[in-house]
């Protein structure tokens, strides 16, 4: 079983420690390496140092008057260049707002289904085809699982493979950071997927329904050249 311990009860917010403005390095004054230890602060410098504003806790972030009565230095002068993101502005995400659920047809015959049994889109299903089925929320995914669960990766959250030669199904995790769970356990390597297994990804729980098995499988001619 997956570990399910975790926080219990009502959490308490730890308040911030008020920062006392006392300008004395325990390493001695100035930016040099630690030195004499005691003293070293220059009262003159401290007096003309009204630039460090004590901050309040996070509760009122937007409009906080400075508690300091001393005049503020013009921020434009004092301000360090803002942290920049490499590459400058990247284009906005292209998968928003959520597109209407457009499913690309699987050209070859269906070999199984994933049915949403819990989470957004409960009761819906998506068909699986021969070979490798990459599952993602985006419409470029072969199996598009887009019923509103935005915790599902856009592409390649998980992969279900049907091997027609061995007549078996496999489940493995996709190429992103998100995990897929099989019967509650994370899938870390390709794992045999049995009919009726429960998969979960994001906030969605799926039941795997196999078409092929001991009783039925597509003939080689029917399943076409793709496999």
């Amino acid at each position, binding site marked *: 079983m997956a*570990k399910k*311990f*975790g*926080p*219990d*009860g*009502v*959490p*308490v*917010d*730890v308040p*911030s*420690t*008020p*920062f*006392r403005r*006392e*300008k*004395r*390095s*325990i*390493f001695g004054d*100035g*930016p040099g390496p*630690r030195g004499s230890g005691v003293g070293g*602060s220059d009262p003159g410098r401290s007096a003309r*140092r009204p*630039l*460090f*504003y*004590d*901050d309040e806790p*996070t509760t009122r*972030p*937007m409009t906080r008057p400075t508690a300091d009565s001393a005049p503020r*230095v013009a*921020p434009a002068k*004092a*301000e*360090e260049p803002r*942290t*920049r*993101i*490499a*590459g*400058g*502005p*990247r*284009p*906005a*995400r292209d998968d*928003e707002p959520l597109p209407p659920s457009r499913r690309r047809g699987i050209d070859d015959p269906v070999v199984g289904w994933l049915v949403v049994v819990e989470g957004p889109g409960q009761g819906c299903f998506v068909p699986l085809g021969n070979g490798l089925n990459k599952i993602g929320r985006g419409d470029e995914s072969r199996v598009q699982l887009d019923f509103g669960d*935005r*915790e599902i990766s856009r592409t390649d959250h998980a992969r279900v493979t049907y091997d027609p030669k061995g007549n078996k199904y496999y489940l493995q995790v996709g190429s992103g*950071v*998100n*995990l897929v769970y099989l019967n509650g356990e*994370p899938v870390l390597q390709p794992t045999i997927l049995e009919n009726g297994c429960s998969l979960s990804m*994001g*906030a969605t729980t799926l039941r795997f329904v196999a078409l092929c098995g001991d009783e039925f499988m597509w003939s080689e001619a029917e399943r076409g050249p793709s496999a």
Partner: protein
Amino acid sequence: MPADIAWGQMQGRRERQQDRVACLTWPNDCHLLILADGMGGHASGDVASSTVVDSFRRTYLERASLSQRDRLLGALQEANYALFDRIQSDPDCVGMGTTVVAVAINRGELLWVSVGDSPLWLFREGALRRLNKNHSVGSVLDERAAPPGASLGAALLAASRSELAEAVLGREIELVDAPHVPLELACGDILLLGSDGVETCSDEDLAALASADASASSESLVDCILREVAARDRPRQDNATVIAFRVTGPEPAVAPGR
């Protein structure tokens, strides 16, 4: 496990305080610490960090059934969507973003998610060690010869080493540090989370401050660190925020059947 937690911040010489923190502690000695260092937009770095911290904690609280790692990653993802929505609804917010480092401590096991360059350190047995990856361009390039995604790769090659390679920006996050295997904490360990303004002090200085008095409260350690940063009197001192988490006792035995 029982812990002594404190946090504090100072504005430095910046116009606004753009760092945001949430420290939650549960009666059964589980803990969640979140720190976000906002940036960008016209004046909205603080909007970004507030949005992300609020959404992160809300999602974490709501998702009780998932594994800890999933909970953290889900909360990160939800926070990213919240930021996207905010940017969509407010033109002033275009270009804003934030780092985020969030740690969850359950039964003495530490897991984290981290995007950006806000450090998470472990002070143990006199030594300070950085736990999370640093997503500055320099660090990312040092770590891997081939950058991860095509778009990010090109961006990295064109950027200077101190720029951020990744942050929470309301779009796909390509670099997330989220270990699968939890770190076991021991009594006496101190975790430090900071915004990069704290790195005015070197790791050695921070280690010296933490070792100065092993029994000092987290509150006094936070105070010491911030005073030390202030004492350096950097002309362009960035916002500095630090969270100290000191393990004060062993994880109590859990009754069977729980």
